[in-house]
């Protein structure tokens, strides 16, 4: 089984892509999209989470089950710095 077949890359990302495109067709652009419960591990590549026009910022929980946070920001707003918190 493909290890990337978790809920985020399989279901949430396509949904976000279609949502962003729908908004774009109405001339709206979303600056930020925040997700929780991504359940992402580091073997899921950024390419698998790619939403056209957006940059993805993410910490991963390799040793954990569940959880996970993620922020998409529009490519026109550059990310100046990024820190992650994971209480080990």
């Amino acid at each position: 089984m493909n290890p990337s077949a978790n809920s985020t890359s399989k279901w949430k990302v396509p949904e976000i892509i279609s949502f962003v495109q729908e908004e774009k067709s109405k001339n709206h652009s979303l600056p930020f999209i925040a997700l929780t419960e991504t359940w992402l591990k580091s073997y899921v590549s950024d390419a698998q989470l790619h939403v056209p026009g957006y940059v993805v910022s993410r910490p991963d929980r390799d040793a954990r089950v569940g959880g996970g946070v993620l922020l998409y920001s529009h490519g026109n707003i550059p990310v100046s710095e990024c820190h992650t918190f994971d209480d080990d």
Partner: protein
Amino acid sequence: MIDGICEGIFCRFYTIKTCYVVVYRPPNAPVESFTALLQFVSNCIQQVNDDSFDHNITGDCNLPAINWVTATLKSDGFSEMHKSCRALLSFMSEHFLSQYVRCPTRGNNVLDIFLTNNDRLITNISSEKTELSDHNLIDIMFAWNPLSSEESAIPKFDENSFRSLDFSKADYDVLKQKLDEVEWPTMRNLCSFEEFPALFTDTLFQICQSCVPQKRVPSGRPKHVNALRRKKARLKTRLDALLAMNGNPVHIGMLKTSLLSYAMI
């Protein structure tokens, strides 16, 4: 089985002077993990060290015990969740943050929150069910879109609504007297039961309009900038006065130097 570890990501966007934090607190998280997360966010905010930045914090905190209308606990207690609720509320007051999500985000609970230190940022928040999650999808509308190059519009109030009136400057003695003068029972008999609410509201609005001043349209400039501009104006007046009466050149020099530091405003 979900472990009890909190997590967060902090991103700074220098070009729009905004920081975004996404947080997650599992339902069974011990208070130590949650306070460590809040401390991490505090440290990041302190590192930015710039009051003009907007700090927006969003995510799922799983804290249904907070009543967000009053920003207080719904019940007393010393469980890990109650302690975490108190930690969050004191974190918010420390950083001048308010929580704006009022609509339930899972079942009847407000679990997903949005905190910001900019009280003009949010114009609307709605949530809708989604097939993707047991939590709702939350749509947060901003007063300005950093992606749009257009000048943001200053919010204007409908002149014929109560929101256009500045009740902090109302003359309540006059207002009370005028309200006492109205013969409500007579008015009630003038129209049908269905029509009365509209007549009641109109009468009330007309009375309020007569003794409550209109709100001034905000300049869109933050308060501290206005304070600095006033200070600059005062210094300039003093300098002009000194120049006009050929005052002490040392004083004039000092005033000119301090005015230079306000040149950007």
